[in-house]
């Protein structure tokens, strides 16, 4: 996979992060190829969220290097905003803007950050709503939608910035079981498009089907990384085995 610099859209070298005295990320080194689909799993508190949030600098790392699409993440605000424009993020709690309609939620970024014309942005938003299957909800407010619909709007909002990378932090964990599928279906369809995806999730069916590679986190480290068939059939580490036995029994 690690052929040349330009093939890897995300490069992490020995990334460390502390919350006060607490060492959350203990030397993460990983390269993610252009268009690769990576699923991240691991026990609660192992640092999965913290890791993907360092990739668009919602958290900043204290040691090591992170290079996204050829730009290194430092305190330079210009770089950070440039990387954020290339990187869409979908949160567990959706984080839609409650004072804006669905359409306005989606067009906000394109209009104000990408400087797109209003009419163009609205057109783009409608086509994205079409894609995630809820064009009829365009003029409602987020609070009027179901959880699954809200999360699909959040995906559309991230896609409206036409990002090269999509980060998902447990996108289905806050959803009722009957809504999980509608969101996963959208993500499956998205995976076909060639975009780079990093997904923190416990949906092992999704991982098996979509991932090129699975990263297993434990206590701030990547304990195991393997393609899905290998990861599920022959996990090498005890901790991976334990985790899999717990989650698959569930």
């Amino acid at each position, binding site marked *: 996979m690690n052929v040349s610099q330009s093939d890897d859209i995300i490069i992490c070298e020995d990334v460390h992060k502390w919350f006060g005295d607490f060492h959350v990320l203990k030397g993460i080194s990983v390269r993610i190829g252009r268009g690769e689909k990576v699923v991240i799993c691991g026990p609660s508190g192992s640092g999965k969220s913290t890791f993907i949030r360092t990739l668009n600098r919602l958290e900043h790392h204290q040691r090591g290097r992170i290079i996204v699409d050829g730009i290194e993440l430092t305190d330079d605000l210009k770089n950070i905003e440039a990387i954020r424009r290339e990187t869409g993020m979908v*949160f567990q709690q959706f984080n839609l803007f409650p*004072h804006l309609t669905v359409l306005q939620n989606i067009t906000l970024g394109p209009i104000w950050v990408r400087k797109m014309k209003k009419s163009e942005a609205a057109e783009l938003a409608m086509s994205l709503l079409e894609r995630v299957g809820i064009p009829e909800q365009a003029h409602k407010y987020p609070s009027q939608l179901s959880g699954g619909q809200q999360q699909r709007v959040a995906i559309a909002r991230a896609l409206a910035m036409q990002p090269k990378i999509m980060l998902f932090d447990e996108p289905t964990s806050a959803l009722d079981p009957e809504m999980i599928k509608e969101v996963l279906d959208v993500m499956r369809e998205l995976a076909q498009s060639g975009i780079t995806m990093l997904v923190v999730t416990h949906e092992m069916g999704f991982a098996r089907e979509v991932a090129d590679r699975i990263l297993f986190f434990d206590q701030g480290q990547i304990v195991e990384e393997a393609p899905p068939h290998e990861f599920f059939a022959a996990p090498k580490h005890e901790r991976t085995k334990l985790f899999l036995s717990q989650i698959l029994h569930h």
Partner: protein
Amino acid sequence: MQTSPQGALPPSTRPRLAPASLGRWLKENLFNTWYNSLLTLVSLWFVWVAISSTARWAFATARWEVIPANLTPLLIGTYPRGQVWRIWTALLTVAFLAGATAGTAGGRGKRVAAWVAPLALASLLFPLRWPTRVMLGAAVALVAGGYWLFRGKRRLWPWLAGAWFFSFPWILFLMWGIEGSGAMPRVETSAWGGLALTLILAMVGIAASLPIGILLALGRRSSLPVISWCSTALIELVRGTPLVTILFMAHLMVPIFLPELRIDKVVRAMIGLTIFTSAYMAENVRGGLQGVPKGQYEAAMALGMSGPLTMLLVILPQALRAVIPSIVGQFISLFKDTSLVAIIGLLDLLGIARSVIANPRWLGLQAEVFLFAGLIYWLFSFTLSQSSRRIERALGLTKPS
């Protein structure tokens, strides 16, 4: 009192007391023990004495003719009588906006009528001149028109909030007029007075303190220590000082610091009120900012939005919307607090009231005049607080109780 859109029981479905059960209710609640019975009788006696003596005074002793005789100054001070149409225009603007607000907030037509009808009725009962009655009628019509035009158009409320905001400079412009103009000559602030002045002071105080308060609130949260220190110091300094002191300071200090500007008394009072209100407004806004969840900042930043853009488009709209009720509350208390400007010699509603009773012709009629002034203060405050509760519900800021 208020029926909520969904959920809570409307008052009419509460069990009615049948006459037979009324006796039982009295027995169970008011006369269940000997000391409770005694307490009930004593309270009844007090209530009776209070009501009967007040009524005797109000209908027999009181000389109410002092009110109609001084009604015009009490309402508009010494504003030139030929220019009163400007005040009416201002009032009509407000009437329209009030109706429109009731409409967007989803107020029921009946409720709007319940507020407006007594006004119309009172204008017929009281000895007003016909032009006044016609203008009051026009105000009522505009409330109804605004209500009808904006009914159910909830999406327009941000525009309406903007319209309210800009109505303030518009009203000031109407009051002030244009230097050297024939149709709308300049009216110096020394001629402003009465209820109109009271309302204008409260309005300017709120409108000017909102942006200043927002800046102070943002300043207090700033990551730059100098800015956050200065903002905090200013807020705490003002909040620890009584309004009277600030008014006196503005009255006495502004001419010392800016002698060449010759700022007039009314403007100095406005400055004092604005400084005072800004500090409280800043704290209100800060509360609203704290209520916006962290995820909102993160979602905006993840889109690549800059800090100021995030604040302007995502955080502030949510924070301000959440503090609308406290802003209205602030307006009400400011409206009442403006009565303190009488101390620095302004002729607001209370100032005019005091000058009326100082007139030998109306000697000894303090009670009538002050009661009337108090009634006006109460009427406005009560209307505002009731409407703000409606707006709160309409915006979904409180759960229907």
